[in-house]
């Protein structure tokens, strides 16, 4: 991993940091930097917010007609096949 020195370096690893992909030392460096650097803290906060809202924004509801056609399709086609 590149040495963490400039804001650019830190921002490069914020996504990995969010995913818990950093060592304890690297985590500590990032956290220290975020406490001191307001612009990076803002980038981090908005990146974290992006991740948090993505999972809540896109519905996984399936329209009833799509589900019902799927059921009919599978009943028709799977009945003819053995599970292999």
């Amino acid at each position, binding site marked *: 991993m590149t040495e963490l020195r400039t*804001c*650019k370096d830190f*921002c*490069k690893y*914020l*996504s*990995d940091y969010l*995913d818990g*992909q950093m060592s304890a030392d690297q985590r500590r460096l990032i956290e220290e930097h975020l406490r001191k650097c307001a*612009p*990076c803290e*803002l*980038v981090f*906060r*908005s*990146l974290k*917010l*992006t*991740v948090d*809202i*993505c*999972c*809540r*924004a*896109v*519905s*996984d*509801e*399936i329209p009833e007609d*799509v*589900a019902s*056609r*799927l*059921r009919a*399709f*599978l*009943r028709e*086609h*799977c*009945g003819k*096949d053995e*599970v*292999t």
Partner: protein
Amino acid sequence: MRPEYEKRHNGDRQTVTRVLEGDFTAFETLVEKYQGRLFRHLRKMVGDNQQAEDLLQETFLSAYRGLKGFTGNSSLSTWLFKIATNNALMFLRKHRPELIEYADEIKVDLDYPFLTASPEFADSPLEILLSREGREQIEQAIEALPLIYRTVIVLRDVEGFSLQEVSEITDASITAVKSRLHRARSAVREALASYYMEKDLSS
């Protein structure tokens, strides 16, 4: 393995065993459980409801026919999403090859993210970000991403798969997944930040 994950994982394996013993109702239980998430994933990949529906049907039919090939090494959801992803990629290669050929192009300023780090976005309350209009913005920002980035962010941040699982589903290395995810998240962040900055200026 996390206890909740293990419980779900074992539950699915028991249901799969019943399907393999000839219980079609058990298969319908699995279909009901995963149809919504798979439909969402396919819609995001191909960008078209009708095509996503056809691919959803193909995905479950392939899964049923190949169920003995499910070894249980990965979770059933990972296995199903891999089938769906491969079906969608095959379709796109045939009908929309340009989406795959130019997949590497992504417009995002990774060097200077500060320019678009707006407090208007970061400090917006969740009820605004997740209002109907807010959700549309998020969907649009995700849909604007090139295919490989869109696929990774949907699998990781929308579907909640681990990096390892995303790597299995997309047949990409963990390093590639992490890099794509970083770029995808940055691009979505940038799009949302710009939207809320402009919205604030015009209000």
